[in-house]
């Protein structure tokens, strides 16, 4: 666990590029991403690009490869600066991640940089165990996440599977036009 908390993007050994964030509708957002080789140089570069793009996007707590136009199972997360965050693991990137345990569903309203004008009520587990691989070394890690970080992880893992929050909204009247813009 501390392996993940100690991880920083410095391990990637390169400064990422800021990429354009893709907005729905776009095929790349609605098809499952490809499994990746986490040790491949292009995957390490993608990881650096995701972190760099997340860093320059106001309020952004996570970004998945499909959101920068790459159909791959890679995402970054950093909820440390978010006011709703309690426990967190700082910045990290996971490849080929999956939720292996989940419990305690909670409903909350979500927005997404790739669906900028809508929000929706989505029920997600508030306690999860996620397994994935670190970019570069390829080592397998597990992260036990709660509350807001758990929600962010599930949102990004969904992106990697080609799912948007729109695929999980709680009902026909649970999608809303956004009233304020970041």
């Amino acid at each position, binding site marked *: 666990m501390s392996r993940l908390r100690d991880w920083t993007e410095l391990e990637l050994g390169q400064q990422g590029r800021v990429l354009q964030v893709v907005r729905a509708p776009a095929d790349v957002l609605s098809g499952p991403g490809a499994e990746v080789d986490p040790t491949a140089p292009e995957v390490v570069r993608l990881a650096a690009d995701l972190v760099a793009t997340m860093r320059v996007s106001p*309020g*952004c*707590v*996570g970004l998945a490869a499909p959101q920068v136009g790459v159909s791959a199972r890679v995402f970054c997360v950093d909820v440390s600066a*978010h006011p*709703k965050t309690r426990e967190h693991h700082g910045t990290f990137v996971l490849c080929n991640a999956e939720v292996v345990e989940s419990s305690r569903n909670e409903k*909350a*309203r*979500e*927005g*997404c*940089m790739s669906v900028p004008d809508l*929000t929706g009520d989505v029920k997600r587990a508030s306690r999860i165990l996620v397994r994935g691989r670190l970019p570069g070394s390829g080592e397998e890690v597990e992260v036990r996440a709660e509350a*807001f970080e758990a*929600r*962010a992880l599930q*949102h*990004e893992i969904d992106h990697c599977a080609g799912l948007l*929050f729109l695929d999980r909204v709680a009902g*026909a*009247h649970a999608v*809303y*036009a*956004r*009233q*304020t*813009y*970041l």
Partner: protein
Amino acid sequence: MTDQLHAITVLGHDRPGIIAETTSRLAVLGLNLEDSTMTLLRGHFAMMLLGSGTASGAAIEDALAPLTSDGTLSVTVRAVVADESSASGGTPWILSVHGGDRPGIVSSVVGEVARVGGNITDLTTRLSGELYVVIAEIVLPAGVDPATLDAAIQRVARELGVGASLRVAEADDL
């Protein structure tokens, strides 16, 4: 011909297939459905939708006329001006009110919202036995103090003998 936006309502006795029939008739006219909403109100079918296309209002009415032939559904069609909801700069809130049914709950509570310039963007009310429930999505303009509005709503709610809560509806951006 340029595209014209039409507001269409379909109201009446519910049965399976109303939406399929309505939308297929509109599709034949090449009408592009934009925003729509549909629900059942005490079992009555209620749908409103905005469609854009080159079809005239009269052509849309003609196309939907078969829906009304048995007298259980009524359809209205009227041209509307495209009116994009603008970025208001306000903040979204959810107002919940629930309590014993009595006249004036909605009008009294939303009156307080209107007084401060709050705009209701979604509203559902349900009567279930004696229980009356109001859920409203509200945009409060910048400069309105939610605590002051909440106090006003609580005062009205006490007079009505109902419970009310106002909470922020801010979405988590992920």
